[in-house]
């Protein structure tokens, strides 16, 4: 891009009287768009919810003192192994409140905001004054289950809070994979040209021609035990074509610029020119389809989970909730309304951010502004 002189690697940050860098300029322009900014805030909010999901809804204490030591059992929601084995040895069986009091009267604990579990039904005598979760059509939203419960009595609010983790992870991981493939393929095709370009362009066209859901479903059906990581890999592997095409076009355009000739004259290797010199300048336009791709990936994951092709339950994905709501659509509207809204808002937020980025980085629109 044109304003990149200030962000070249040998520029010292302390130098005065320097014009704003490209990213700074983009950020300034992005910040002026109120909708895009509120979308960004929303995604940050989702990130916080995902990060602190075990503190918001769970049945394991965030911090507790037990037999003289401090423990963080809530970490078990992140990774089974992070829950201290002492609780398994002492036969807690995931019923912390009563067991803590019974086995160590001096113990204390800080509990999550909502005592509900995303993986199992909360029973009658677990928490003082909180009845067991209702099941099926009785599980409509109430004081203890804000968003109701599903057929087997698992709290929907807890599932949605923990599902945020999956939704965000799916977006970033699968688009990370897609971006890595797309950028490498596009860079090689655009920079090297010749038969490499012909071959890779054919490959891109071929993958684009395969109806994506046919390919995704066939790939998933091969996997014996589908986990959320498999889904991310499959989505990533099938959605890189748009990024590759754009990268190729950018490289075709940029490789004729003077700074590339200069780098060549300095004796930089092809690899260095491609990924250090050209890619930095092509990054802004590539970022736009990546942002839209995150929205699409979240959509595909929830669609697949909704169709029953996702990770098997208990897996608190928003799509899985929709699927369980569809079975009894006549009665359980809350199983569809809340997760559906969550998917919608997340997709909308990413689309708005993508749009904002597009308008902030597009030089044509910048000219119109002046």
């Amino acid at each position, binding site marked *: 891009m044109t304003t990149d002189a200030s962000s070249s690697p040998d520029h010292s940050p302390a130098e005065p009287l320097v014009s704003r860098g490209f990213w700074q300029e983009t950020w300034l322009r992005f910040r002026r768009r109120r909708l895009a900014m509120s979308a960004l805030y929303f995604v940050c909010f989702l990130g916080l919810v995902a990060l602190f999901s075990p503190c918001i809804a769970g049945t394991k204490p965030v911090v507790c003192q037990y037999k003289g030591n401090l423990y963080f059992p809530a970490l078990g929601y992140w990774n089974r192994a992070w829950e201290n084995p002492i609780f398994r040895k002492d036969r807690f069986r995931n019923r912390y409140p009563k067991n803590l009091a019974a086995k160590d009267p001096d113990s204390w604990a800080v509990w999550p905001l909502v005592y509900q579990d995303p993986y199992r039904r909360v029973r009658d005598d677990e928490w003082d004054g909180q009845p067991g979760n209702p099941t099926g059509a009785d599980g409509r939203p109430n004081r203890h289950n804000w968003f109701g419960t599903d057929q087997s009595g698992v709290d929907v609010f807890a599932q949605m809070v923990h599902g945020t983790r999956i939704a965000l992870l799916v977006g970033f991981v699968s688009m990370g994979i897609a971006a890595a493939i797309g950028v490498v393929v596009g860079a090689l095709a655009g920079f090297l040209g010749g038969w490499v370009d012909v071959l890779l362009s054919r490959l891109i*066209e*071929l993958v684009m*021609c*395969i*109806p*994506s*859901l*046919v*390919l995704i*479903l*066939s*790939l998933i*059906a*091969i996997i*014996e035990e589908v986990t959320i990581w498999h889904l991310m890999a499959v989505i990533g592997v099938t959605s890189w074509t748009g990024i590759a095409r754009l990268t190729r076009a950018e490289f075709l355009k940029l490789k004729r610029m003077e700074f590339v000739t200069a780098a060549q004259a300095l004796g930089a290797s092809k690899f260095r020119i491609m990924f250090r010199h050209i890619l930095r300048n092509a990054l802004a336009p590539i970022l736009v389809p990546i942002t839209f791709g995150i*929205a699409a990936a979240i*959509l595909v994951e*929830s*669609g697949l989970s*909704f*169709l029953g092709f996702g990770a098997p339950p208990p897996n608190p994905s928003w799509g899985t909730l*929709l699927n369980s*709501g*569809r079975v009894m*659509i*006549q009665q359980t*509207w809350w199983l*569809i*309304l809340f997760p*559906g809204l969550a*998917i*919608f808002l997340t*997709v*909308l937020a990413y*689309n708005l951010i993508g749009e904002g980025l597009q308008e902030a980085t597009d030089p044509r629109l910048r000219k119109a502004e002046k």
Partner: protein
Amino acid sequence: MVSFLLRRIAIGLLTLLLITFVIFGLIRNMPGTPLTVDSAESDPSKSISPEDLKRLEKTYGLDKPWPQAYLVWVGNLCQLDLGRSFTHKQPVGNLIRERVGPTLLLTVTSLILAYLLSIPLGLWATVRGGTTGERSVSTALYMFYSLPSFVAALFLQILIAVRLGWLPLFGMKSDNYAQLSALGQTWDIFLHALMPIFCFTYGGLAYYTRFIKSNMEEVIRQDYIRTARAKGVAPYRIVVHHAFRNTLIPLVTMIGLTLPSLLSGAVILEQVFSWPGMGTLFFESIGRRDYPTIMGLTLIFSSLTLLGQLLADVLYAVVDPRVTYS
């Protein structure tokens, strides 16, 4: 033009071969075969004895390695034989012919509707750009664009079918369909198709409208528009005759590019509405490992996608006299 067409068709056929080869390899490597999946699901005690399994595999051609089986499949395809479905016990060709109608009813209707509605809407949004009405319509369309169709389908089902009871919840025909008169039958299908068609249409409608508006805004700044205005051409004529004709070119190429996503949408939406189309069939076949049906449907889906792209290229030359392929 003819040589261009021939070359494109040849490339298309080659692409089709590659696609089917990839998908064939994938589905033959799925765990389970149509014979084992079926029997294990119905009753574990009814599992087929190893000798019977061998015999059955031989009759269905499952004993060969998959590249060889692929060649057999292509050979049969050249004789217009798609094989027999394992689960439906009838030729795949007949099966697809049965299911293609309902799918086309949804996709083609919604494609036409989306184009018919988006053009006036997009032009209106350009002319009235910046007014409150235009802003609210554009915002609503943007929200629609981000609303996943299966979520919309479920919301509609709850609101219109379950709460209000205005439209049937799913399916294509009522139980008493056979007793209805011809007019009643059409009305019945129409009622069943309303919600699916709406869900198929709104996403495309929102996308095209935004597309037309952004293109029109670029065109309307051009010098020839100013010239037309200066010489006193009526505003209506400027928008339709001078500006819109120049946004038609990218719009036409969109048809070809939206076809694959429309078909992908069919797989999910038909499932939501239990619509007896190709998407539902594909979905069932994957679960039952019905290889010939999966392959037949893959062939149809990919051919339609390629045809759409070809159509876009041809139409490109039709609407833009500057483009020639000779």
